[in-house]
Structure formats: structure tokens, C-alpha cells
């Protein structure tokens, strides 16, 4: 009995899990497996195993802290059942008061980024300056170089914070655009009909 206990206590993966747990509680942004492996000076595969242990331990309805895979890494968050209590004490500065214009701009940058303000304006048909500024201030998008032409406009891309706020494991987790605009063909047909009527 005694020897069995000692065996469990000295289980190296369990020890690694404690280290990973410690790293995650200090972090304020998701940590990737590579970062966790480097910090704990251990093998990435073993870190994944340790994360599996932790995911089980920190899961909804089992713990007030939940380990989630988000924004290309792992992070602790509050359990959903504690959200009312959190809302009484804390603010959500990132997403509070996001306008429709900002959401449209965010969608353009998320799907087509990195892209510049003129590109966003071309797609939306209106200037995107204030929407872009608001998103930058919230930390949802960030500058990502310039367009290749000399004096090119600044390009923007979404940040890891965007993925975290929208609970995306990565940008690849966004739904496919084709699934969203299902009746595009119908629109095209109607316009073509108009054009041919005029040409004749």
C-alpha cells in the first residue's frame, strides 16, 4: 500500500502536470504546447499527456476553473456556471459595445486578412477608419506590415485575443464562407438578368 502510494506520488507525468498547471495559472494568455514544453524542460508529447490529465481535472461542473484549448494554446478560464458571479464583479472591455460596422470589419479582417483599410472600405462600401481604430484599441486586430507597393497602406490581422474572445482554437475554426452566403448564385442571376435586359 505504502509503496503504491509512493509510486503514484513520484509519477513523472503527474509531476509534469503540476508544472504545466503552475505555468497556466501564471499566464494571462493561452500557452502553446511548445511553450509549455520549453518552460517545463520536457517533451511536447508528454506535455500533451499532462494536459489531458489537467483537462479532465479542470472541466465544466467538476471545477470552478476550466482548462480550454483556444487561440492555438491552452488557458484557464472560469466555469460557465460562475459567469453570473463574474459579471457582477468584472467588466468585458473587449467586446462591450461592438457595433455592426466593427463586426463587419472584424469579419473582413478575419477572413481576408491581413488586409488594409482601403480593402475593408472597398468591400463594405463605406470608410472603415473608426471601426478599425476601435478594433485596434480593443486588441482584436493589430497591424501586420504594409501593402507591397511603395507607401502602401497598413495591413491588419486578427490577434490571439480575437480567437480567445470568440472561443476559436484557431482562425481555421471559422465557418467556411461558402456555407454562409448560400444564395449568392441567386443574387448573381438577378443582376445578370437586369444586365441582359438592358443590353438587348
Amino acid at each position, binding site marked *: 500500500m505504502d509503496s503504491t502510494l509512493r509510486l503514484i506520488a513520484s509519477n513523472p507525468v503527474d509531476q509534469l502536470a503540476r508544472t504545466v498547471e503552475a505555468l497556466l495559472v501564471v499566464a494571462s494568455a493561452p500557452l502553446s504546447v511548445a511553450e509549455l514544453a520549453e518552460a517545463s524542460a520536457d517533451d511536447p508529447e508528454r506535455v500533451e499527456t499532462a494536459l489531458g490529465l489537467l483537462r479532465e481535472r479542470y472541466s465544466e461542473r467538476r471545477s470552478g476553473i476550466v482548462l480550454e484549448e483556444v487561440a492555438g494554446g491552452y488557458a484557464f478560464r472560469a466555469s460557465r456556471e460562475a459567469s453570473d458571479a463574474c459579471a457582477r464583479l468584472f467588466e468585458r472591455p473587449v467586446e462591450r459595445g461592438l457595433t*455592426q460596422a466593427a463586426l*463587419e470589419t472584424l469579419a473582413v479582417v478575419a*477572413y481576408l486578412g491581413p488586409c488594409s483599410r482601403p480593402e475593408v472600405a472597398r468591400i463594405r462600401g*463605406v470608410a472603415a477608419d473608426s471601426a478599425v481604430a476601435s478594433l485596434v484599441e480593443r486588441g482584436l486586430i493589430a497591424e501586420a506590415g504594409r501593402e507591397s507597393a511603395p507607401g502602401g497602406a497598413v495591413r491588419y490581422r486578427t490577434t490571439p485575443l480575437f480567437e480567445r474572445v*470568440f472561443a476559436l482554437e484557431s482562425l481555421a475554426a471559422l465557418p467556411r464562407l461558402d456555407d454562409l452566403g448560400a444564395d449568392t448564385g441567386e*443574387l448573381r442571376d438577378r443582376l445578370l438578368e*437586369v444586365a*441582359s435586359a*438592358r443590353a438587348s
Partner: protein
Amino acid sequence: MAATSVRELELDLDAFEGPFDLLLTLLLKEELEPREVDIAAIVISFVEILAERDEIDLEACGEFLVLVSALLELKARLLFPDEAAELDGLEPEEAAEELARRLAEYRRMKEASVWLAERLAAERDRWFRLGPAPLAPQPERRLAPQDASALAEALRGLAVPPPKVSLSHMALRFPPVSQFLERFRSLLARRRRFDFDAEVGGLSRVEQAVAFLALLELRKTGEVALDQAAPFAPIRISSSRPWPATAPTGRSPAPPRSDAADEPMPSGAVQSTVPSGLGSSPTSQEREEGLELSHDERIETWTARSA
């Protein structure tokens, strides 16, 4: 037909995000052809809405102006594709295709923004810690190879006790009263009478004060007689002992020289009367020691006098 449809349209401008949004709504909900959109009718309906309200919302007006002008431009491009710079050289079919492509692109983004809004609402109960970027690149501090003996040398320089700060300038120096007693006595041994002011003229204020104490001491013991013609007039000091009782031997008694008393003594002569160790330029250490001694002595003098 188109005009009536637009008139019936409830034009809530806040609901539209740009001309594509408005156009999409017109195309899909009201089933209007783009080139048949009566923009004048839209303007009229907007003005009617404004008239119903008592106040003018300048922001809404500005937004409407932008929307309508963009819409007008789109319509013009569609109607006159040859003159539209962006659609230059395109056949009507191609122009329609281009507009359809752009509208479709916008529409997909609008759908995506709807998905994002729904996602945001669904994830509203996920709370997590927000903080400043915790993984800022760590500056690698590269140090040049150092010699241990250089470090020891640097430490040795620091280990030297700091020089003692001299406070000598912060206190008054009181020369001992006895110094002036002896000085005046030796002076009286050579001269029967002298002028106090002339004698102490070259001394500091403190030294003059101590010299005056010595003078009072001599007066008390009856060695001198003091004489002052008027307040602030020169103080004359004359020996009350019979001249030349204390005079150096071999000197004949000379008649009192009234004018000689007014003459200041040469500074060299004054210095020669000062006992050794209390010269005019003692070292700083001597001065400090002298200060302590004179201080104690002065207190003793005062204590003795008041007793």
C-alpha cells in the same frame, strides 16, 4: 412601381451599414432591380421621416448623405458602365457580374459578422483573465568576459572608508581668553598706554570679543585703567602699575606717548606676541583642538566669574 415600393419601405437608416447593405436590402427584401431603384424616392422618404421628427439628427443626415451618394454612384455605374472608371471597358454583362461579385462578397462578410455576433452572445458566459502581454521578448543580457581581479580592484576602491567630513566651518572659534591676557600684559610691559581698537583692529569679530573679555579681566584685577571719551570712542588702556615696574630691563622710563597709542602696531609685532601654537595660521587640526580647549576654558572662566 419602383417608387411606390421604396415609399413603402420603412427606412431605418441605423440598420444599414453602408450602401451595399442598403442595396442588398432593397434587392433581396423589396425585390428591386438596382437600375430601377428610385433614389429620389429614397431621399423623399427620408425627408418625410425627418419632417415627422421635431429635431434634426445631424449624424443620421450625414450618414444618409454618404449612403445615398454611394448608391447614386453605383446606380450611375450600372446605367453607364462605359463612363465608370472602375468598370471601364466592361460590357453590361461584365458590369453586372462585377457588381454581383462585390455584392456577394459584401454579403458573405455580413453573414460572417452575424455569425461572429452570435458566437459572441453564445460565449458570453466564458470569463477569463485579461492581462498585458505576459510573454514579452526577454532581452538577452550578454556580458563581456570579465576579469575577477578587475572586479576585486573595483571593490577595493569602494571599500575605502570615506574621508571624514570636516565640520570646522560650521562652528565659531573661540581663542582662549588667557591668550589675550598674556598678550595685553606683554604689551603693557613695553608700553604704558595703548588703544584697544587699534590693537584688535586686524582680528576677527570673535577674537575681538574674546580680547574684550580679557580686557575686562585685566580691569577686574586692577592691572589696567580704562578710559573712553564717549560711547563708541576708542577705548584707551593704560597700565595702573607704576611705570616701568614691568618694563623690560635696560629701558629708560619714557614719557607717555599720547600719539603712539593711536598708531596700530605692525602686524608682525602683533603676531610675535601670540604664544606659539596659537599663531595666525595654525593647521586645521590645531585649530580644532584649540577650539575645544578654548571652549572649555571659556566656560570655566565664565563659571568662575559668576560664582
